[in-house]
């Protein structure tokens, strides 16, 4: 069997459902035994702020998506957002944050959750994932 390609995911969107699904894709790849590296940029960074999730304002469509996902979380069909994040981390994914997005949004490293491994530029991320499958969300 040839070596499996890793999965690199650039999560750019701040939409709850997109981030949730990006992390679900990461989880499936980890279950397949693949290496996973996630690069959080722009609006996705807001979700990595400590205690951020409650204060994010959502447009009507995103609010509806969030409601549907959360209803299914309550029913036990899906993992809670924070459980999903820690499961993905526990199974070995790397979390990187975009250095320039941090500057743009005026976010300091110590404002981000401990799951973040390091901050880097896009060039570094691309070199770290040169032979990976890449997704932009």
């Amino acid at each position, binding site marked *: 069997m040839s070596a499996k390609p890793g999965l690199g995911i650039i999560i750019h969107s701040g939409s709850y459902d997109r981030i949730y699904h990006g992390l*679900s894709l990461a*989880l*499936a790849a980890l*279950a*397949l*035994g693949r290496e996973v590296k996630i690069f959080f940029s722009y609006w996705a960074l807001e979700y990595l702020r400590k205690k951020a999730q409650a204060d994010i304002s959502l447009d009507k469509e995103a609010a509806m998506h969030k409601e549907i996902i959360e209803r299914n979380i309550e029913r036990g069909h899906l993992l809670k957002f924070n459980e999903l994040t820690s*499961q993905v981390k526990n199974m070995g994914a790397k979390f990187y944050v975009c250095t320039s997005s941090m500057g743009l949004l005026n976010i300091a490293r110590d404002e981000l959750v401990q799951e973040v491994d390091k901050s880097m530029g896009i060039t570094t991320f691309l070199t770290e994932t040169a032979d990976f499958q890449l997704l932009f969300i």
Partner: protein
Amino acid sequence: MKETEINGQNLKVASTVDAVGLFCPLPVVKLKLELEKISLNDVIELLADDPGVLDDLPAWCGETGNKLLSLVKNKEGIFIAHVRKTKD
């Protein structure tokens, strides 16, 4: 250890993963995590009701090198699968 019959053979089941009610990709994720705890060549049982497992489970076994022994749906609509850990 629980026993089950597959294709006329009695098999010992080392562990059962109950993923009933869980949506994709959680059944496969739970299976993978449980598989890490059992010994090579042991058999694990997976219970799930997400129809995604019908395709996901053979695909997962194919890529990870584990053996899918059986995958059936019972009268209650629950999928019951048996997987042998053939890869460490």
